[in-house]
């Protein structure tokens, strides 16, 4: 138990901050994922074949390639890509990107592919009459999406989005390979310096279980809230 003490003697406070970091990365990645989903869902549902192709390419590639490989691409290729863009604007110094940003971008793009599929499924299961009624009333496409389709879609999407959240939360453990100090990395450091890997990795497992359990409870509440009236 003294291994988990707060302060200089134990790893309690370090692991606590690492847990906060895991939550921060997951939430950021989830929002980046939503952003990507909002771009790619319309592409996947578009009438134009070429736009469809772009949307399908994104979801197929990301869902078919291991998360770790995507993270390595961002980790090793991220600063190179940024530096290339900067060189166009005439900036040639070395740019190092923060591990937090690379990590949440990588996980966010992965999470976005799953969210896109969820949104696509939810939109497709909305009654066709809703779209037609909006058209008849002369509502423009933008308002139609934000005021009519989105609210109905969210209710249908929440159960599946909760799965995406769980996947995203668990994927953040992979960013530990880039050196960002989240739960997994902190446990690795603690295990290395105390030579007690069994204890620390089991503790990490408990922390992840706790996070998934708490998020399940919160999502269940949201689900009840959004399905009011049905």
């Amino acid at each position, binding site marked *: 138990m003294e291994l988990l003490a707060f302060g200089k003697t134990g790893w309690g406070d370090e692991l606590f901050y690492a847990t906060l970091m895991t939550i921060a990365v997951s939430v950021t990645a989830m929002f980046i994922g939503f952003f990507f989903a909002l771009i790619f869902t319309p592409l996947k549902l578009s009438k134009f074949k070429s736009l469809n192709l772009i949307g399908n390419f994104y979801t*197929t*590639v990301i*869902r*078919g*390639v*291991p*998360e*770790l*490989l995507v993270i*390595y*691409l961002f980790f*090793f*290729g991220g600063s*190179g890509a940024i530096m290339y863009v900067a060189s166009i604007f005439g900036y040639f110094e070395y740019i190092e990107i923060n591990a937090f940003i690379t990590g949440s971008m990588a996980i966010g793009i992965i999470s976005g592919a799953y969210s896109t599929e969820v949104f696509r499924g939810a939109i497709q299961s909305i009654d066709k009459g809703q779209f037609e009624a909006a058209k008849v009333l002369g509502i423009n496409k933008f308002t139609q999406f934000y005021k009519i389709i989105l609210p109905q879609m969210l209710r249908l999407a929440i159960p599946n989005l909760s799965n995406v959240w769980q996947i995203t939360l*668990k*994927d953040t*453990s*992979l960013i*530990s*390979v880039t050196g960002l100090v989240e739960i*997994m990395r902190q*446990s*690795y450091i603690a*295990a290395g310096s105390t*030579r*007690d*890997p*069994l204890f620390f*990795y*089991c503790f*990490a*497992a408990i922390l*992840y*279980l706790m996070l*998934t*359990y708490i998020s399940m409870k919160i999502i269940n509440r949201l689900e009840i809230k959004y399905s009011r009236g049905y």
Partner: protein
Amino acid sequence: MDFDLMITSLPKLLGATVVTLKLLSASLFFGLMIGLLFAILRLNKNIIINKFAYGYSYLFRGTPLLVQIFIIYFGLGQIEYLRSTFLWVVLKEPYWCAIIAFTLNTGAYTSEILRSAFQTIKPGIIEAGKSLGIPNKIIFYKIQIPIAIRQSLPAYGNEIILMMKGTSLASTVTLMDLTGVAKYIISTTFKPIEVFIVAGGIYLFMTFIIHNFIKYLEKKYSFSQ
């Protein structure tokens, strides 16, 4: 774009694909057996057995695969007692540790898939079997299991693809699988995009094959209406 690098790294990556496929097939094989066992335990009416099986699947589905591999590879070696038993022969090899972790992980997901498949079997089918005087054991093996396998094919196909992606984590315990070799080439040449295209292409190809194979099976075993 460095096409030379792409061509020279292809044989190395294809060699590493064999390791990935070995890990995948071994863990799927053992995982399916464990999954079936725990699915049957989940359907047991005894509350202790039931809770035990639920706890297993909750534990392995609620934690990242990386933690599970690290506990098995780094953690178990710490127990002095284990080192003196024959289990140590298995546990000191990263290859077997990875397979154990993958097996337990995919077993947990598979047990959930199979359980829900068993539960969706219409009671009428089992009753029909009973009224024909077929013994319970044979109803289970000859009627329930085939139907459950058919029902769970789409979900199990997804699980195979997820597991294939999961095997990439073997590279974190020093195994040189496809991702491990890809990372090695990236970190020596610093050309991430080229290597990503080749390695990602191989993974996508495997996903494609699995996806179509499952589709074929689904068609083959679909219920004749």
